[in-house]
């Protein structure tokens, strides 16, 4: 296995959906190709209805494609290697488990050894600022704390890839800051590939190594940018401003 090979390759994807009473088929994707580099954070941006979420869901095999290939690298092929999370990720919590048990349960199910489980839970609690709440039940948490727990949970067992499908949209700014910092450090530590589906430029600039802009029907890649800034990123640095220029330029042309 070549570890520099892409984590996932979408090749010649065609996908259409039926709309309206006439059930007219609309080709959303036609011969679309894109590959995702392993161990990096890729943001997929586009206005709503541009097919971002469709792409994410075809990646996890949730939607059947008309033609084309979704090829995951060998070490991503087990279902538990790809964790998919959308806006309703709060609903994945186990209300009957305490905070630490919520993090521990996936590890137990993946047959982790006890000492490793304890260490991982401790590290996650710290990264997401939940250490003091370890023994609480989810119903005792605030909305933001619950969201932090839910994100911690969906990457707890070190999946090789995490797909965040507009998952960060409804977060308040404090929660978002904590989650973004934790995501960034865990992605690096655990060598996790992250695919971030979003329409928020700020999230892309805070997290991503690369940004792919989608638009038009059938979907085309309108822009593909490397964002090579050090972390944590400072919104006021000249490098940051320089990096966001071309993105804003594309956005300004009304594609988002």
């Amino acid at each position: 296995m070549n570890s520099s090979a892409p984590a996932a390759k979408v090749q010649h994807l065609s996908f259409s959906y039926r709309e309206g009473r006439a059930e007219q088929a609309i080709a959303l994707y036609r011969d679309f190709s894109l590959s995702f580099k392993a161990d990096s954070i890729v943001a997929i941006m586009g206005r709503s209805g541009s097919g971002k979420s469709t792409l994410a869901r075809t990646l996890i095999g949730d939607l059947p494609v008309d033609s084309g290939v979704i090829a995951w690298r060998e070490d991503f092929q087990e279902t538990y290697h790809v964790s998919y999370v959308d806006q309703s990720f709060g609903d994945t919590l186990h209300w009957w488990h305490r905070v630490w048990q919520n993090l521990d349960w996936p590890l137990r199910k993946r047959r982790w050894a006890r000492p490793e489980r304890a260490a991982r839970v401790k590290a996650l609690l710290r990264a997401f600022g939940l250490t003091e709440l370890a023994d609480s039940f989810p119903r005792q948490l605030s909305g933001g704390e619950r969201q932090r727990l839910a994100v911690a949970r969906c990457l707890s067992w070190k999946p090789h890839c995490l797909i965040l499908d507009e998952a960060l949209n409804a977060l308040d700014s404090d929660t978002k800051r904590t989650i973004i910092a934790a995501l960034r450090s865990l992605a690096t530590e655990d060598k996790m590939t992250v695919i971030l589906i979003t329409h928020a430029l700020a999230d892309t600039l805070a997290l991503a190594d690369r940004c792919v802009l989608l638009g038009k029907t059938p979907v085309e890649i309108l822009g593909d940018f490397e964002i090579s800034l050090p972390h944590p990123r400072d919104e006021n640095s000249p490098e940051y401003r320089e990096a966001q220029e071309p993105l804003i330029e594309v956005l300004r042309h009304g594609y988002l």
Partner: protein
Amino acid sequence: MRSCATATCDIQMKFSPRLFALILPLLIVIAWSLITARGWVDPLILPAPTAVLSALGKLLTTGGLTQDLLRTTLRVLAALGIALAVGVPCGLWLGYNRRFYEAIEGPLHALRSLPAVALFPLFLIVIGVGEWSIVALACYNSVLVILISTVAGASQAHPRRLQMARTLGLSTRELITDVLFWEALPSILTGIRVAVGYGLALVIAVEMFIGVSQAGLGRKIFDYQSAYRIPETYAAILLTGALGVLLNLLVGLLEKRLLHWLPSASRSDNQ
């Protein structure tokens, strides 16, 4: 704390709901004493509360009803135990295999709508006159109630939670014990509450029908009534009612203990 301006609100603040709940029974006892003291009703139909209470005291102290109380309670609990052992696993499995459940849902509801007592003669033929006939009949209803409420709870499992469990590669058995059981638990407890009520009613009714072993509160109510021992009849009825209240309270305690994690929005506060 909410601020209240109205008079009714003031009263509610001063008296706890528990105290409030005592008012209606107290009124009934007062009315009862008044009716019997004035001799408005024949004591053969309605004896004085004091007569009933002294009969109850005598029966309890001499142990005249202890055996029956124990027997009836055990029958209700045995029926509930069997109903849980059968209804919960089957209900969880059916909740997971919705399509199969939808195929048998109609007949199941038909069976549940059938008054259980109507089946009793059949049970006598199949199982015979005995302890098991009584338990089986009480079971019949409880199994269906618990099965249906378990299915209802399990089918409400959040798709996201199930999706995550599948992503983690859980086996069907693990999915049922680790996720579906907990999703269904609130509903199962509601089922238990209903099943206990049905169970007690059925056990009492069947005890009246047959004189198996001569023990049981239902049997005693029937016997005392036949012998025109009216205060004792009322005493046995009161005891049966108290047993029902006690069982209900126990289910309430169980709910509190097992469902403390439930967000209050989805909790049914009906105690």
